[in-house]
């Protein structure tokens, strides 16, 4: 077994009176591609935000790369953050900087490199996501998919040990989405990167995931290696991979049934 890269224990997140996450545990090992999945509003994005320290957690611990996140001071935190990369949902590029400058920013901030090396490094990273032609464009001039790829190039700028992606394939066409999946796989295989992805895109989960964790209603429904979890016969997991639900709209009756025009049918 590879070493543990990320461990979440009993994470609780509350927004006001609503409890979003209610005691979530998760373990991610080195070199795996871990998918966090769940329906809309299941708390999967919140789990990612909690891990990254972008939302206050009401309880629980996060240990990332062997360090307890909640116990770190600002400086140590900053240093730890340089060892991870994050791809945000819409890229989160800085609007006042060009694509090239966006990718160069973490390099300028955290590395002492000559200008020429920075420029080359930026080109390397942009070529990796197939955006060489967009170096001098501003984020507002890019399409949604290009923003995402530029965001990925920036996340990869410092050669992170762990890459977090928030819905990387949402809003991408199937072709671009498949290219992104291939890139994630080669990052894992060649660069030994650990990848944590929040997504509900089935095609991409089947293509890349080594292991998964499914959250629903603020709790962990299932966690483990892909095949293992799928063979356990958990209803929510089976429904998800069968691309159909029995549970949806089950509580609702058709108007015809209401008036006794047909007998209530078992789930459609």
């Amino acid at each position: 077994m590879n070493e543990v890269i990320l461990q979440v224990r009993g994470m609780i997140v509350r927004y006001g009176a609503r409890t979003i996450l209610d005691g979530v545990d998760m373990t991610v090992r080195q070199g795996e591609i871990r998918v966090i999945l769940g329906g809309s509003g299941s708390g999967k994005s919140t789990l990612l935000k909690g891990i990254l320290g972008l939302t206050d957690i009401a309880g629980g611990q996060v240990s990332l790369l062997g360090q307890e996140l909640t116990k770190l001071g600002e400086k140590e935190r900053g240093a730890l953050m340089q060892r991870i990369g994050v791809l945000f949902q819409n890229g989160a590029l800085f609007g006042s900087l060009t694509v090239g400058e966006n990718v160069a920013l973490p390099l300028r901030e955290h590395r002492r490199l000559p200008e020429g090396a920075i420029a080359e490094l930026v080109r390397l990273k942009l070529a990796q996501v197939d955006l060489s032609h967009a170096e001098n464009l501003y984020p507002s001039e890019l399409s949604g998919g290009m923003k995402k790829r530029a965001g990925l190039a920036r996340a990869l700028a410092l050669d992170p040990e762990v890459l977090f992606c928030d819905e990387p394939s949402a809003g991408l066409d199937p072709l671009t989405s498949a290219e992104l999946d291939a890139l994630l796989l080669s990052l894992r295989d060649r660069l030994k990167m650990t990848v944590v992805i929040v997504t509900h895109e089935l095609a991409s989960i089947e293509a890349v995931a080594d292991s998964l964790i499914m959250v629903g209603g603020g709790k962990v429904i299932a966690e483990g290696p892909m095949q293992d979890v799928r063979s356990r016969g958990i209803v929510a997991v089976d429904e998800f991979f069968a691309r159909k639900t029995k549970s949806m709209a089950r509580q609702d009756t058709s108007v015809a049934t209401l008036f006794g025009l047909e007998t209530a049918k078992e789930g459609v």
Partner: protein
Amino acid sequence: MLPPILWGGHLRTEVQTSRDPHATLTVTEAPHSTARARALVLAGVLDAKGAGPFATQVRKRLPVKDGKLLLDLTALTAIDSAGTATLVDLWRTGKTRGFSTELQGVQPGVLQWLQEFRVTVDLPPPVALPSFFESFGDTIWSAIHALGDFIVLAADTTIGGIQSFFTPGRMRWSAYFREASLMGSQAFGIVGLITFLIGLTLAFQSAYQLRQFGAAIYVASLTAISMVREMGPLITAILVAGRSGSSITSEVATMKVGEEIDAMQVMGIPFVDFVAVPKVLAMVTMVPLLTMLADLLGILGGWIVGMVYLDIAPKPYLQKTIDALVTKDLVTGLFKSVVFAWGIALIGLYHGMGVRGGAQEVGKATTASVVSAIFFIIVADSIFSIIFYVVMG
């Protein structure tokens, strides 16, 4: 729409339908209908146009408790979602009032619509509105929180600003110069023009009174003192709040909505150093300069009124102006402008940082930022007037 017709105490409603202008809905009360078993015959099309009049008419003749509402739909050829919803609504009314609703002779075309739509049988209870004391308490509590957040931001930014000024390499000079040019040099025109006109008006209005006592020359001292002590700092600050305070808020709010601030945090780039400090520092250095310009142009406005309207020679007017002003006037005016600038920038940042949710929040935050910045300016100015001219004499 044809008016509902009542036949001998029985109901008959006929309306045109929306999709097919020739189709109508006719609701007739059957001859055997009683208050215990109300029987209505629907014919035609029950759609969005007919549903309203239908519901109104039926509500006038609902069956009694434990009675029955029988709707004969044999002659109903079509229905839509509005019609379906009306039927469900009747069913619910029956459930609360204790009568049952039955549909008879439902045609296949209508049945398909009734099968397509699903309803929740037991609706969740409506969310109770918070009581007066609850919402009052919430307001106070969130105000305390907001004040706490503001103090933290103010402390972070101010301390960060002072530190980065003395730490070589930490200050983002390029960001500072970009902000300073946006807030300062590009505001010269508008601030200059407005304060020139204020000076002009001030002199003009006071001359009208002072001339009656033959004291027209005092227009010079009056304009000078009010411009330098009050009008210059105040007008400049209000203009800057509207011009740059709002743009700070919308910029930061847009960054927040686009997860850019989150991205900075995970990239280990401190927001305070990168965004907040250059803005606050640019504001604090540029507003006093703008205020000096405002003072000068206000006095210039008064001077022109003095020469043209009051026939005061240029030189005595200027002499009177210089005699009237003391160093304290200038120093207090500039000190105030520094405090105003600090407040405008922090209020702008604070409102931008507080944005949650989508793009529509950006506009709201910008408005709130300008209003609270102007409020701050006026309140701070009143306090300073008391301190400088009452307490300190």
